[in-house]
């Protein structure tokens, strides 16, 4: 497949305030960034810093309190424009959301059939094809409960991909996996990214993972989440396990770790000052 030319995302000074029971919680504060069409961006930050919230705004589950989100040159979300979720921006969730009552194949086919973009036969054929590419042949008729967690995550990514989204929104998809499965999944995702050229927004709290996978890594501060640091990752693609032992990778990683550590220390000290008041 050729590199897709669409899927450019721009966030302009986006903020979001939750107010459950009138208590205002500033979850995301003044975030601005751009993801070029066909780029892989990772967002890294500590737990509870607003990563999921940021993703939810692009997905259309939350409306920004301030700021605007632009996709391919049109403003799709702002305090006055309510964005609805849609198959051009498919989300893969932190906790996994395969429907347990449908088999793997049914899960994958569901999107296109329901939208009416494909007939049942086309959808099944396409789903089988993508499942095969992903090494998931032979478990089409299993229920999600009966396959390993690594396979579940892969099925979920496949389910997103058959909809031909412009943007793939991945919310810590590999969080619950063990190290072995994780590295297999990394390779899978990298191969997939090289093959499809979709825009990817990948959320994680693991800096290593972010540098290994992404073109650009944004580091967020603790809540309220701001974008604090931008790391350009100029490692050549295609990447594989060997990339992790190159000098450039180690250099980038150390640089990033220092920056993040400094950031964390600053946040910690500021916290102490605030406590002392």
């Amino acid at each position, binding site marked *: 497949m050729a590199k897709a030319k669409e899927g450019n995302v721009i966030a302009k000074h986006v903020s979001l305030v939750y107010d459950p029971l009138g208590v205002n919680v500033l979850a995301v504060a003044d975030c601005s960034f751009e993801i070029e069409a066909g780029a892989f961006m990772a967002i890294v930050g500590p737990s509870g810093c607003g990563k999921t919230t940021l993703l939810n705004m692009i*997905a*259309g*589950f939350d409306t920004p309190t301030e700021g605007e989100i632009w996709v391919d040159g049109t403003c799709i979300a702002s305090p006055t424009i309510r964005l*609805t*979720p*849609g*198959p051009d*921006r*498919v*989300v893969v*969730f932190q*906790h*996994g*959301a395969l*429907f*347990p*009552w*449908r088999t793997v194949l049914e899960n994958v086919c*569901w*999107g296109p059939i*329901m*939208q009416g973009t494909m007939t049942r036969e086309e959808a099944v054929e396409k789903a089988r094809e993508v499942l095969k590419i*992903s*090494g998931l042949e032979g478990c089409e008729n299993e*229920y999600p*409960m*009966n396959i*390993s967690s*690594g*396979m579940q995550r*892969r099925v979920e990514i496949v*389910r*997103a991909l058959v*909809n031909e989204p412009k943007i793939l*929104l991945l919310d810590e998809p590999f969080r619950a996996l063990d190290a*072995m*499965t994780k590295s*297999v999944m990394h*390779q*899978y995702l990298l*191969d997939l990214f090289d093959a499809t050229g979709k825009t990817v927004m990948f959320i994680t709290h693991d800096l290593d993972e972010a540098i290994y996978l992404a073109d650009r890594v944004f580091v967020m501060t603790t809540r309220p989440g701001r974008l604090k640091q931008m790391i350009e990752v100029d490692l050549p693609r295609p990447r594989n396990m060997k990339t992790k032992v190159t000098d450039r990778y180690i250099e980038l990683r150390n640089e990033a770790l220092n920056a993040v550590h400094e950031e964390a220390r600053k946040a910690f000290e500021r916290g102490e000052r605030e406590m002392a008041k």
Partner: protein
Amino acid sequence: MEAIQMNKVEKNTDQVDWASRIDGYTEHTPFQKFWRRSMRGIFNLSNLRRILSLVIIVVLWHVVTTLKIPPFTRVPTPYEVWVDALSFIPTMHCFMCVIFSMGRIYLGFTIACLIGIPLGLMMGWNRVVKNFVFPTFESLRPIPVISWIPLSVIMFPLTEHSIVFLVFLGAFYPIVLNTLLGVESVRADYIQGALSLGSKPRHIFFDLILPGALPSIFTGMTVGMGLAWVMVVAAEMVAGGYGLGYMTWESYILIAYPRIILGMFTIGACGYFSSAVIRHLGNKAMPWRSLF
């Protein structure tokens, strides 16, 4: 891509024949193997304990009734009940009692499902419906269903109708409540995921809410079936007619004590059978869960 195959973990450990893994264990012939398997299936320690517990209960029953220890002075012995069972069960009268009670259960319970499940689904799906229905529902629910017996006898000119109504009422509350609970327990992730795949409300209702609520709906039906039997027995005892409840009560009036116990057992057996049917339907309707 080869590496991806790696995490296909070996599954189905429960199908491994553990005995064959023990040192020094050898299977000789296929017949030995078969014999061993089936014996292990029937005469394992767990089943022996289960049978033993039943035997102990019957023995205790025998002891307390033959020794006439109060309050068991007038309770028939297991043997008397057994003799009565042999003479009563093959009769037409017994058959009709079962048919009548079952028929009332079937009617009342089906109506309860037909009204209760859609009502519960709508309440969980639409806040307006819930706002309108739930307060009424919750204010009527604390009234024990048994206390509806006099009113329902007044309301319906035919005994048959009032009994079916009471059965309906007994099954209705748990079915509605559990259905509502089931709808509300569907994970928000699934809904968000479906929305992001581009689904419309209709798809969310039929493809997510309904299957997501199904386990809870079947729980409600099981509980509802239990209460339906409570109601049919109580209503038959009061309102009369045919049926197992009526038969049991009549036996008391006629001083046929063994038959009281027999009536109780028959009611228990019918109740068990009804629950088994629901469980079976549940497993059929939810193939993804029968693998747990």
